[in-house]
């Protein structure tokens, strides 16, 4: 049996290794110390954006990584306490976004029980526990139905749109839950990209809810339990969704969310999934598979291997494909995850430049000049092809483009980042799709509402 490398060096040669990782063997104690050290080291980077002594919001998905994070936060703050230093954070808010409204009753019960158990763990640590229902994406601060999730309403054009969407929502009998159900139900059919869009949207809403919770509780830090393996999958997913520009913000140790006081913080992003699993086992950290797997199988969810032929692939989401791609790679090349992340962490795309417009849906920065990128490389209307005029001297010029009333890019596309533009594009039955933010998300002309027949809304075949 292999022995712990550090203990051998220190002369405690009898301690057996419990895990081989990062090219070395570790006994349980040395492993725990090393891993916890990586977590605390994340607080000591140069030019850190992290505020000190203010409330923190910890996103708890019920998964192993974020469960470990909650556990680490307790140890970390206890250590502050014992060492008599002022606590790094003045209060901890542990937040769980609850997808119950999308689940069967049977699943809801399991989720309920687990969330109660999570609450007692958090409260046992003296943390505040907040359960955030998904459908609250559609409520305003009073709990009333609000179909605008729009954070920054400065442009007159957007104000106009907001007003219109308000006027439609006032007359409807919708509730936050019915809005949420309608929203996700509109992704249940073809085309094949719909499950991908639904998962993207679910993730986007979750992030927005967490950010909103952080603001509500005056938290200036929002912590997530992303680990190196989930980040590797994230890199592939973001790339495949066209969201490469914002990748650095999605995976960096710290990310100041534009137009807010919130810094997103990912203190265990260097831990490999195998290491997280081992720590959870060694510290006997409670597991919540029901909550962690709430979204599983809701959309797509036919998880197969890369290269799976035929229909099953079309049923998978891009997120699933990316995850299994990374998994397969990791199996064949255990070092691959750290290789991938190490380089990706260095990539700069300019997405942290000040003053960029932010996406109305995901509230991340929009890549400058990217709004027409798709249209300029894909001709989807004959009107966009100019006539050719032959001059008398034999030279050839292109006629000015036929003045098209409607630009190829929808009005709402101009307000969304490249990756979020898929949301309006991929859905066929547009009148069913009500997003937080209003009908005008759908890529229709701003003055066009369902039924006018002036845009390609409505009837599916």
């Amino acid at each position, binding site marked *: 049996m292999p022995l712990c490398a550090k203990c051998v060096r220190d002369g405690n040669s009898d301690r057996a290794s419990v895990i081989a990782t990062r090219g070395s063997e570790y006994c349980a104690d040395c492993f725990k110390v090393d891993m916890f050290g990586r977590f605390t080291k994340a607080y000591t980077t140069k030019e850190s954006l992290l505020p000190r002594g203010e409330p923190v919001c910890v996103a708890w998905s019920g998964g192993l990584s974020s469960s470990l994070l909650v556990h680490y936060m307790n140890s970390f703050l206890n250590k502050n306490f014992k060492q008599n230093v002022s606590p790094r954070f003045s209060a901890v808010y542990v937040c769980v976004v609850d997808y119950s409204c999308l689940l069967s009753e049977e699943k809801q019960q399991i989720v309920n029980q687990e969330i109660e158990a999570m609450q007692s763990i958090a409260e046992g640590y003296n943390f505040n526990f907040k359960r955030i229902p998904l459908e609250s994406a559609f409520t305003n601060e009073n709990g009333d139905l609000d179909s605008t999730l729009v954070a920054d309403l400065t442009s007159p054009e957007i104000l106009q749109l907001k007003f219109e969407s308000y006027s439609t929502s006032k007359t409807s009998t919708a509730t936050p839950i019915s809005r949420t159900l309608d929203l996700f139900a509109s992704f249940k059919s073809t*085309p*094949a*990209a719909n499950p*991908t869009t639904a998962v993207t949207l679910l993730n986007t809403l979750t992030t927005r809810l967490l950010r909103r919770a952080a603001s509500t509780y005056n938290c200036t830090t929002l912590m997530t339990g992303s680990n190196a393996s989930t980040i590797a999958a994230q*890199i*592939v997913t*973001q*790339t*495949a*969704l*066209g*969201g*490469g*520009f914002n*990748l650095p913000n999605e995976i960096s140790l710290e990310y100041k969310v534009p137009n807010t006081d919130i810094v997103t913080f990912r203190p265990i992003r260097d831990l490999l999934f195998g290491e997280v699993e081992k720590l959870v086992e060694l510290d006997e950290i409670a597991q919540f598979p029901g909550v962690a797997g709430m979204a599983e199988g809701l959309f797509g969810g036919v998880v197969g291997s*890369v*290269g*799976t032929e035929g229909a099953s*692939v*079309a049923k*998978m*989401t*891009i997120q699933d*494909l990316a995850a299994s*791609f990374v998994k*397969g*790679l990791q199996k064949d*090349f255990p*070092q*691959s995850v750290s*290789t*991938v992340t190490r*380089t*990706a962490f*260095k*990539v*700069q*795309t300019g997405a942290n430049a000040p003053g960029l417009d932010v996406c109305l849906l995901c509230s991340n920065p929009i*890549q400058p000049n*990217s709004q027409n*990128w*798709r249209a*300029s*490389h*894909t*001709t*989807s*209307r*004959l009107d*966009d*092809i100019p006539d*050719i005029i032959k001059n008398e001297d*034999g*030279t*050839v010029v*292109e006629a000015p483009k036929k003045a098209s009333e409607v630009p190829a890019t929808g009005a709402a596309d101009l307000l969304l980042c*490249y*990756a979020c533009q*898929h949301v309006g594009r*991929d859905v066929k039955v547009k009148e069913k799709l009500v997003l937080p933010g209003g009908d005008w998300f759908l890529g229709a002309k701003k003055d066009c509402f369902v039924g006018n027949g002036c845009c390609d809304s409505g009837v599916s075949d």
Partner: protein
Amino acid sequence: MKLCVLCNTNRAQLKRPKTGQQICKTCFYAVFEYEIHCTITENKLFKRGDKVAIAASGGKDSTVLAHTMKLLNDRYDYGLDLCLLSIDEGIKGYRDDSLETVKRNQLQYNLPLLVLSYEELYGWSMDKIVAQIGTKNNCTFCGVFRRQALDRGAARLGVDHIVTGHNADDVAETVLMNRKLLVLFQKFTLTHFPLVFRGDFARLTRCTSITTQTLETSATTAPEHLTIPRSKPFKYTYEKEIVLYAYFLSLDYFSTECTYSVEAYRGYARVFLKDLEKVRASAIMDVIHSGEAYAQSLDEIERVEAENGGKKKKKTVVQKQGTCERCGYISSNKLCKACVLLESLNKGLPAVSLE
């Protein structure tokens, strides 16, 4: 009857791979050709009077490229002097037949053709190389030799520009298997790509940018005048659409896989890309869009690492960017990659690793 969504007149005959639109053949040709025209003009790939060599292998990509370059040059009066440039690797049964295709293309499109053989350039044909080293590493040879062969052929023809048939799928694949970002994917993708000119594992910047000027060395250090600019008019053109276009127009191309690629397998990245495309048609474009956001930064990372590495090993710093001692080809080392491979071949050694 389902009408074409573009013209609303003709019967829809195909589902366009890039957009999923049901369209007629006429509209397909129109959008297909116009997009390539846009890629050429918006990126200012050429100027009037340029002599442009079309890298022609006889395969579908280069055949469609020759067809569309000729067509667009006439239609839009680019004023380009076009010619075909073909490399004969010396693979019996495969290259013989594909060269016949290129020769027919020469007549069909009325373009001058230059064929350069490996035998002529290096003293070794691929058949001879395989006879010596087996089929295991022959793709390495093929890629390195071809890259130089194109430059040398182009120099011989006195051209200003080379165009290759790299399509959007090729570019997206390079984003996913980029050696810096997803370094290990490359191990899966060292496959044989004789039909199109994609064996050269270019850096991401070189692949996502439309025009590449330097080939053997990093873009920032190479003297520009030493190599001939290359570009990819098909950068945003889907492979599936190239196949459809060739099929509908009954273009004459050679479709048999290279004899030596039998044991090669397609890369993870390619399979993954095809899966992505099944889920969302625009995924190939989306990957390229992401790749364009990373490109500059990855190039910078690579440059910095090369500099840092250079500080540790002083010898490599002394060897300045220059030319190969033996053949004069642009190279950052004493010998260019082709000459290194040739040396091992001539000594009868197994292939050396290039990375």
